[in-house]
């Protein structure tokens, strides 16, 4: 028996190195990101990891454009829909309007918050009419849309899709239905996608979760935001 037999075999050695490397990598990542642990009751509303949004362009009333800079420095609720949607959209937008009225009760804690209603139906929803439609639910709800390509690019960043269905035979070309996301999304002031509220939504529930998310956010404001 020689001394070499006391050394671990190559296979074990390789495994050991792999384990150390993986542990080291995650250890390094955790030291880079301050890990903010979310209270269990709001876990459902948070993405596993906040997602950095990159530049995008959408169109709002008055020929103004809406981009990444309009998300920075404030909290943003986002909802995708279209104004020819009578069942899902008015209910979710009414919930958002109600949420804004609750938020307005504690502006010092929950201020700097806006909402964007993004129409994925630019063929029928012109920015001016869209602004009027959105403002009906709350004055701080902005209406925005864009070209098909712009809308698709932004939707992809949020992780949703939409589809314009074909009009039924015999119906006018502008008489069609749209399938779209029914989730309300939340973007933080660093333009990171952090939260989601799936249907059926409830204004009190959203505002309760929102204030907890903001508390966590101010705790870890300087760090990257990772939730485990």
């Amino acid at each position, binding site marked *: 028996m020689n001394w070499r037999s006391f050394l671990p075999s190559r296979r074990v050695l390789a495994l050991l190195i792999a384990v150390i490397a993986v542990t080291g990598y995650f250890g390094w990542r955790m030291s880079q990101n301050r890990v903010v642990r979310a209270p269990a009751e709001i876990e459902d509303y948070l993405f596993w990891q906040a997602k950095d949004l990159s530049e995008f362009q959408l169109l709002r009333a008055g020929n103004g454009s809406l981009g990444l800079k309009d998300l920075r420095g404030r909290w943003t609720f986002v909802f995708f829909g279209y*104004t*020819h*949607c*009578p*069942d*899902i959209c*008015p*209910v*979710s937008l*009414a*919930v958002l309007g*109600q949420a804004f009225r609750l938020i307005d009760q504690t502006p010092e804690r929950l201020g700097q918050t806006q909402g964007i209603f993004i129409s994925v139906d630019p063929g029928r929803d012109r920015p001016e*009419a869209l602004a*009027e*439609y959105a403002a*009906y*639910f709350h004055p701080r709800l902005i209406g925005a849309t864009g070209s098909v390509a712009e809308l698709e690019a932004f939707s992809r960043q949020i992780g*949703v*899709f939409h589809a314009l*269905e074909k009009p*039924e035979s015999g119906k006018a070309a502008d008489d069609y*239905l749209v*399938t*779209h*996301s*029914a*989730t309300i999304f939340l973007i933080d002031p660093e333009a990171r996608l952090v939260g989601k509220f*799936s*249907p*059926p*939504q*409830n*204004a*009190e529930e959203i505002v309760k979760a929102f204030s907890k998310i903001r508390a966590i956010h101010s705790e870890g404001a300087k760090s990257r935001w990772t939730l485990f």
Partner: protein
Amino acid sequence: MDIVLRALISLSLWFFAAAACAASPEIRVLEPWVQAAPPNAKVLAAYLRFQNTGTRPHTLSAVSSPVFERVELHQTVLRENMAGMQKVGELRLPPKETLALKPGGLHLMLIGAKQALRAGDVVPLTLSLKDGSTLSVDAIVRGAPAGADQPHRDQNHSGHASHAH
């Protein structure tokens, strides 16, 4: 010959009318309401509950309203948080059952608003059953309940039946 034919026609009409008259009181329409939407909305949704108090099945085949170009029966389908709508041809109303049309599910899609509608306005609806009878109800425009599946105020606003002869 002419007399026989006319008698036959009037007899069949009488049968038809009798069937229609017998049908309508079995169907009650409870709490019809229209989801308030911005004044520039061209499409709205109406909700209500159908109660079939009779012993025979009925079928809702068409709906119309004087303040909209047309009305369609729709079903909202929520799948993996994606919302889509499907047109429903007709609605079966089984005996001794209540069918609820509510946000996020079955609804009457009111298409092509002829005027802006605000909360408190009344939308007359004519509901046609397959047996030829019709029901007329007035739906009130009102704001959304706080949650999509929240129960609505339980005011028994039942429809008044009228008959198509």
